């Protein structure tokens, strides 16, 4: 695993935000690692643990707990559709299906949170997430770090075109 100098410097700077305990930097470091590599590998877990003078289990238990961290790559563009009550009332279940259809993602039965669903060519991945805190403009979604509100099913093809 290669950490480019720029990322290494950023990581060192972030650790200074926590003068009392380096362990506090665990979440920020995991965010940085995931942003760079697309997911958090076993090797990355060991690396972050060593960096913060912790055991790998101290980091692994975070990766498996916090929903935003993943241990395998997502698609090139990652879609998060809000599943919770106000968005569900606004049609988010049907919106998820529409995204899947246009992104060519096959949706199996079963739990909504089971696994990240991916398109065969790896361009898109999608997941249902819990409340994104914009209930007044339901339904809402995120594509990568971009937020979209009041998303109509008709707008999905155009929206996906922005993320080739």
């Amino acid at each position, binding site marked *: 695993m290669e950490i480019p100098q720029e990322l290494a410097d950023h990581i060192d700077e972030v650790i200074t935000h926590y003068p009392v305990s380096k362990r506090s930097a665990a979440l920020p470091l995991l965010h940085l690692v995931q942003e760079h590599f697309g997911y958090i590998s076993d090797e990355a877990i060991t690396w972050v643990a060593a960096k913060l003078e912790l055991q790998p289990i101290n980091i692994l238990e975070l990766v498996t707990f916090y929903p935003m961290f993943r241990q395998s790559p997502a698609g090139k563009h990652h879609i998060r559709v809000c599943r919770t009550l106000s968005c569900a009332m606004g049609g988010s279940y049907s919106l998820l299906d529409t995204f899947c259809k246009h992104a060519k993602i096959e949706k199996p039965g079963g739990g909504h949170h089971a696994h990240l669903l991916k398109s065969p060519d790896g361009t898109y991945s999608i997941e249902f997430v819990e409340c994104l805190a*914009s209930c007044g403009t339901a339904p809402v979604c995120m594509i990568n770090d971009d937020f979209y509100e009041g998303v109509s099913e008709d707008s999905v093809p155009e929206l996906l075109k922005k993320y080739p």
Partner: protein
Amino acid sequence: MPAIVRTPHPRERRIVFKNIDRAGWTTDIDCYLKDGGYEELKKALNMKPEEIVNEVKASGLRGRGGAGFPCGAKWGFIRPGETKPIYLICNADESEPGTFKDRYIIHQDPHQLLEGMIISCYAVNARLAYIYIRGEFPLGAKILETAIQEAKAHGFIGKNIGGTGFDLEIYVHRGAGAYICGEETGLIESLEGKRPYPRIKPPYFPAALGLYMSPTIVNNVETLCDVKHIIKMGGAEYSKIGRPNNTGTRLLCVSGDVQKPGYYELEVGGLTMGELINDICGGLRPGRTLKAIIPGGSSAKVLRADDRYKIKTKQPDGTTVDEEIGIEDIRMDFDNLAAVGSMAGSGGVIVMDDSRDMVWALNNINEFYAHESCGQCTPCREGSLWMNKITTRLLDGGGFADDPDTLKTVADNIAGRTICAFGEACAWPTQSFVAKFRDDFQAYASRNGRKQS
């Protein structure tokens, strides 16, 4: 997709949301300074910290995150002459379903939050502060980081602020998608780099044993913004807004089946539920009737539209009178929503009309809590999943005739039996939906004619 911008409703009283959707308003510090920004900080730095605490106490400000605890009293828990370092954390983990107010402060008016935070840090003598922002606000985190750099460049954060000898550093800390991090002791554990398992109170009241086992004040975004305005107008003046014990303005977030969902800043208790829905939010869709309202975020107990609610009303001469009111007459404040058996919570009002299936709605909420239980306490870890399984099987046609009773039993065995208030948060929806819409649940449960016991 352009952001949905709305002009304030004439009945609104915009104090905290003054700059939200304001024409020409930007997030940079020059815009904020031109509008008189950081003047209250300068005023506060000329006051003694205990004077600020007293102003906040006098204001009657109650926390806007959900519990409604008096802010001044919370600050007062820091012991005078405390020798351990004191920390302040801004809870920007906004994640209670139905709530979407802090999002706009963070994304459109970050300096207002910073100014409120710096004043609050000075008041409680905190030299290190964190903004714990939910992971799903990546842009918000960047905006706040930029704002902190700008405030540092202007000497509002850093060493010897305003020549007072007061030093302060503020950092942004991103969560990673876990609702339980909104619970203050879970948040603290998370900020320490651990799984966010809430701590038991006592002894772990954050004001005594918080971050790194030091005294810590955790306040919601909106609460910290209110502090700025309390300094501006004075605690006594602020307390005249709203109603006794329910002072100030409140950001109400309305979603669901109304014509104009959105955020509205209103005097606390300044209007009734009916006025909120019909006058402010444009009423229901044509031809629909009201079925239910969740008044304070998804964990608040649901109110049934055709129920009558018994409340005690205080008269001007101090006596109380028993009154029976309908849902539309409930005054939107902490005390009245508690009196009708629910809560003002985080200000998230979810409206459901007669097109909604209550079993479906509860199942949606149950799925949320089943996903978000941290798993530390057995009743909640197991019970939240059982409740979700039962409402799912009711919907899927595999229910048992006694499922409504089973739901109630499971919920009753979670509430009050867990380390943190998540137990109540996940039990209250099930308890209230089943109690108030028993027939809807029974109709599903009796379809097969099967009994489990």
